[in-house]
């Protein structure tokens, strides 16, 4: 500010004045807040874009490179940075032929690009997607259609082939599975039989024989179906001239993005989304759906809720309604607070040591001794995981319920007591109904917390791929001892343990988005509920 010709002392004064007013610091703190907000919105937005974009059919681009022609989706671009030239990542798929799904090409080496109308993306049951052209469709070696007509022919015959495939899967999964379980049951019963009991043994053997006959029959039926499904073949050709012949029944979806309109693409998008939400995982969880994980998460959270609500509400009632203020209440509060602050992995360790090994081991000794040394409850399962999470989320319910209880007006209580109701009657008929929305808020927050936790589950029963659901049509329907799949663990497993993590990344984004949606939606719901409650009753946090 030499232009103003101010002397040094006054410059110093101005500096002091500037510091005094401190608006620069206000701006600094505003910037800190802005950075935090930017980070969170950026993060959620990033996941949403990455996840949601994954199902949209992208154009297949054919380009020439020094190593020959190349056809694929452009999956990433990298601008030149320092010495590194600009590059483009192509998803070329055809893992079985090329060995890898992705290729990085320098922009400078990319020749002419075009979008051939007949380029197709074939989603397959095995080996990931195929990107290339449909050469022909044949039945028992007889060519049904080739060239341009082949795609239409394949598309037309796809539902038939897929229903065959569906039949095969049903038999393999349900009927053979049922038979296997019954055979195992027989084996166990036989083990538990007294050695001298010849008649019972004979009966069991007859039963087993009958089961084996049924098993054989199923097997023949399966063989027939498999042979039939192998009759229809689709011959695919890559852009560099290799051909690949696969049964049409191994095709999940045929997509020709370059000649599909926006409506068609939306249809494909919806179909893929539906498959993701409702289908079983394939290819070690990197493709297909995540239905078992969704189901496992929901079921676990529900079982957890059943246990966490009574415990949390009782504790809150004790603190607010029954206990007199004193060291006891203070120590209960400290305990609740500590429970909220203990790292989740410690709960996992406790769950493993106490629920799984100690309680589970005792249950196995008492009720499932005939299956030992194979543990039934003495290993991780959905019951133990839910119990562990219930312990972990109890403070959330306690705090919310306390707040709700304290916001029930004193006048209501006194009115009830004045009418001659006992304390419990007052609580049951007046206080609890008034506090119900608050308890619900606590429950929802607990559910959100429970749905997002992974570390304790890793020790108490979550698996990457569960062979059977914890709830199914088999007696006794609920299988509390079974291991289960979980969205959060799915993210960890597919993102970090999968051999082909690059190809699996979109799946992880989508799973993360789903988990995020669930958790954020639950939280938003709870927040709204709480705000309504506060507005209505004018309670306060403290």
């Amino acid at each position, binding site marked *: 500010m030499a232009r103003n010709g101010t002397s040094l002392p006054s410059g110093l004064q101005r500096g002091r004045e500037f510091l005094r007013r401190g608006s620069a610091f206000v701006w600094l703190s505003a*910037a800190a807040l802005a950075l935090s907000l930017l980070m969170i919105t950026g993060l959620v937005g990033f996941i949403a874009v990455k996840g949601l974009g994954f199902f949209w059919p992208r154009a297949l681009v054919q380009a020439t490179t020094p190593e020959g022609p190349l056809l694929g989706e452009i999956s990433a671009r990298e601008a030149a940075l320092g010495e590194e030239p600009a590059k483009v990542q192509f998803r070329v798929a055809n893992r079985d032929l090329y060995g890898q799904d992705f290729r990085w090409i320098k922009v400078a080496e990319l020749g002419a690009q075009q979008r051939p109308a007949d380029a197709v993306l074939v989603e397959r049951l095995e080996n990931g997607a195929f990107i290339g052209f449909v050469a022909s469709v044949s039945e028992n070696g007889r060519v049904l259609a080739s060239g341009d007509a082949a795609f239409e022919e394949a598309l037309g015959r796809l539902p038939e082939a897929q229903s065959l495939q569906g039949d095969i899967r049903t038999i393999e999964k349900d009927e053979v599975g049922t038979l296997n379980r019954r055979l195992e049951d027989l084996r166990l019963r036989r083990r538990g039989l007294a050695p001298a009991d010849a008649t019972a043994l004979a009966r069991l053997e007859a039963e087993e024989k009958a089961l084996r006959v049924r098993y054989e029959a199923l097997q023949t039926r399966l063989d027939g179906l498999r042979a039939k499904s192998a009759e229809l073949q689709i011959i695919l050709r890559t852009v560099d001239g290799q051909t690949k012949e696969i049964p049409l029944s191994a095709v999940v979806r045929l997509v020709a993005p370059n000649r599909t309109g926006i409506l068609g693409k939306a249809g494909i998008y919806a179909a893929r989304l539906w498959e993701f939400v409702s289908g079983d995982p394939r290819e070690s969880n990197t493709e297909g759906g995540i239905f078992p994980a969704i189901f496992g998460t929901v079921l676990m959270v529900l079982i957890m809720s059943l246990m966490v609500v009574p415990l949390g509400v009782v504790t809150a009632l004790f603190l607010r309604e029954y206990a007199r203020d004193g060291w006891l209440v203070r120590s209960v509060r400290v305990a609740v607070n500590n429970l909220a602050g203990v790292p989740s992995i410690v709960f996992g360790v*406790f769950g493993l040591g106490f629920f799984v090994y100690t309680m589970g081991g005792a249950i196995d000794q008492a009720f499932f001794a005939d299956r030992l040394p194979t543990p039934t409850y003495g290993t991780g399962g959905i019951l133990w995981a839910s119990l562990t999470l219930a312990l972990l989320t109890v403070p959330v319910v306690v705090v919310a319920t306390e707040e709700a209880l304290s916001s029930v007006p004193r006048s209501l209580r006194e009115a009830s007591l004045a009418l001659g109701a006992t304390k419990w009657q007052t609580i049951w008929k007046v206080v609890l109904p008034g506090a119900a929305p608050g308890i619900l808020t606590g429950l929802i927050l607990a559910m959100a917390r429970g749905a997002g936790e992974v570390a304790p589950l890793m020790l108490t029963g979550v698996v990457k791929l569960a062979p059977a659901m914890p709830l199914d049509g088999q007696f006794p329907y609920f299988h509390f001892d079974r291991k289960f799949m979980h969205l959060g663990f799915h993210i960890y497993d597919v993102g970090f343990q999968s051999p082909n993590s690059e190809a699996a990344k979109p799946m992880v984004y989508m799973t*993360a988005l789903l988990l995020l949606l669930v958790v954020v939606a639950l939280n938003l719901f709870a927040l709204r509920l709480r705000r309504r409650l506060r507005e209505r009753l004018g309670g306060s946090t403290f």
Partner: protein
Amino acid sequence: MSAASPKDAVLRRAKRVDRLMAVIISVGGLAIIAAVLGMLFFIGKEAFPLFRGARGSAKQGLQAPAQAALLLDESGKAAVAVSAAEGLRLIRLTDGSALKSVAGSPALPWSWVSRPTAAGELLVLDGAGRLHEGRLKWSKPAGEANPAAWDLEPVWQPALQPAQAPQRILAFRLMEGGGLEGSGVLRVAALTQEGPAWLESVPGTTAAVAWKPLTNLAGQTVQAALWSSDGQQLFIGTATGRLLALDVATGALTAEAAFPEPITALAFALGGNSILAGGERGALQAFQLLRTGDAPQLQRLHVFQPLAGPVRGFMPSLRDKRFLVWSDRDLAVDHLTTEARLFRASAEGLTSASLSTRGDLVTASSASGETRAWTLQATHPEVTFTSLVGKVHYEGYDKPEFVWQSSGGTDDFEPKFSLVPLVFGTLKGTLYAMLFALPLAVLGALYTSQFATPRLRNAIKPTVEIMAALPSVVLGFLAGLVMAPLFEKLAVSVLVFPAAALVLALLAFPVWMRLPDRFKSLWGTGREVLWAVPLLVAAGLLSLTAAPAFERAFLGGDYRHWLLSAQGITYDQRNSLVVGFAMGFAVIPIIFTLSEDALSSVPKSLTSASLACGASPWQTAWRVVLPTASPGIFSAVMVGLGRAIGETMIVLMATGNTPVLDWSPFNGMRTLAANIAVEIPEAPHHGSLYRVLFLAAFLLFLLTFLLNTLAELVRQRLRKKYESF
């Protein structure tokens, strides 16, 4: 209508229910304390056996023939008694009675037989002066518990005829597969008439083999010797108290070490890496041949408590690193890694002793013909307090170090359970997270509570609360798979970013000051945060574009190369910066919410007074509000700290999980919590690793317990303080 009407019954019932519910609810309320204490107690209980010392107790009534060395069977029911007079005999330990006889041994009488090693190898010098190497193998029918049905099937190597009878055999080693047709090459070191010498068998010939003298001994008297596992080196203990390593093929002395007294016995601990040496006056040390640098060197690894009397022999366990050592009147079981003495007993006139392969049974035979036995209970000998927190000299390391390495590829692996690297990793991760999160969260809370307009505030608080609910597995996934590679590419931009933001702010500030006051008060005050967003975005873009130039100008074009060459730091992709950043996401909302609560509950009267005295809003916020709320902010920081310490998934996914001791922000760490998640699925129930992990969980529990209790106490005091306003 009687007096005891249904109304009375209803009332009575209501009262009964009331009392019942009071009891139930009180019990339920106390259950939460029980749960917390129960958890603490249970986890502690699972970890406690680590520190229970070993217990040895005398076992009565074991019988074995005198003057024989024993090789115990795994179950401790039977043993092979080896003596020169009677050869190999199977005996039942409970009464000393003979079991099945052993067939196929060299013809009796033998002129000398070695004590069987723990693995069951022995060397026999028969009456004709030939050497037989044998390996004792039990053959037990499956599920057979009665030793009477057990057989011993020794595998004998072809006889070796030395050209000259040895005076005293020092050591032998069968090199497996060294010969043709499955037979090994036997190497023997002995004292002959010409002095110390060695020979080796030639497979397929029965001709006499000449002794080759051992050279380079400088005239020292050889008292004990030991072949290395591969048979290439011969370790020699001399009467002058030196431990020598000789390469027998070349005759060269490869390494030597000093021992305080004449060496009388040498043996290997499990794994064949650590050489146990015992001296004439009972000194006991372990050495290792370290092959680092150009020349191998014999290095002292451990010093154990001495025995009484000259050390006569060793027997390692085949399960862990414990070993039995005995002198003429003393015997002890020590653990190699921890140097802990698990067991000690005195037995006058001891001739030989034996340790079962599991290391849970010790027998000692004395010259008087008496056999004594002890059972030894030492379930976790590899863990002591010192080994958990102190430096330990492990096999293969050139100095004592803090190491965490719980399992290795082989059965003879030496487990390394030092909690120090894990605690260090936990503190390091927490530190970087707090460095990042603390200023952002506290400043953000200060702004939200003091300067932001109410509408803005009502929008910001729920957003941050949602941020608190983000599952850590999602943050971890983003940190590990997205941020880590991005950071690696843009590390310089990230570091330049604060500078860029400052420069832009300095440029923007004069412009802002010149804006009309009306505009400023309408759009500025309380809404600064809205203007800060574009500023920060611009700063981000600026730092992205400026980074390459900065890197070229100051860091020689490639920062990783610069780090390595100028600073000696390697850059790991999954490093502390990434963890700190990602964990910041988890910690910021906690500190923010709690601090904001504390700041906004500062009584309005205080701020009004300050403003009325002419203080600017910032002065009020900084000098009045912040100090008043500082206990609340402190408690917020404690809770945030607790969260950062225990965070598992983010650390698990965003670091390489290498347990290193290094403060560098460019490499990773392994925290206590992540370590539990990584290791406990493979830890056998009630094994040492399992218990050490429970100990780690106990530490985490205690640490967060302290932090949270502290925070809660501060909060309660704060609440009381404000009540008076």
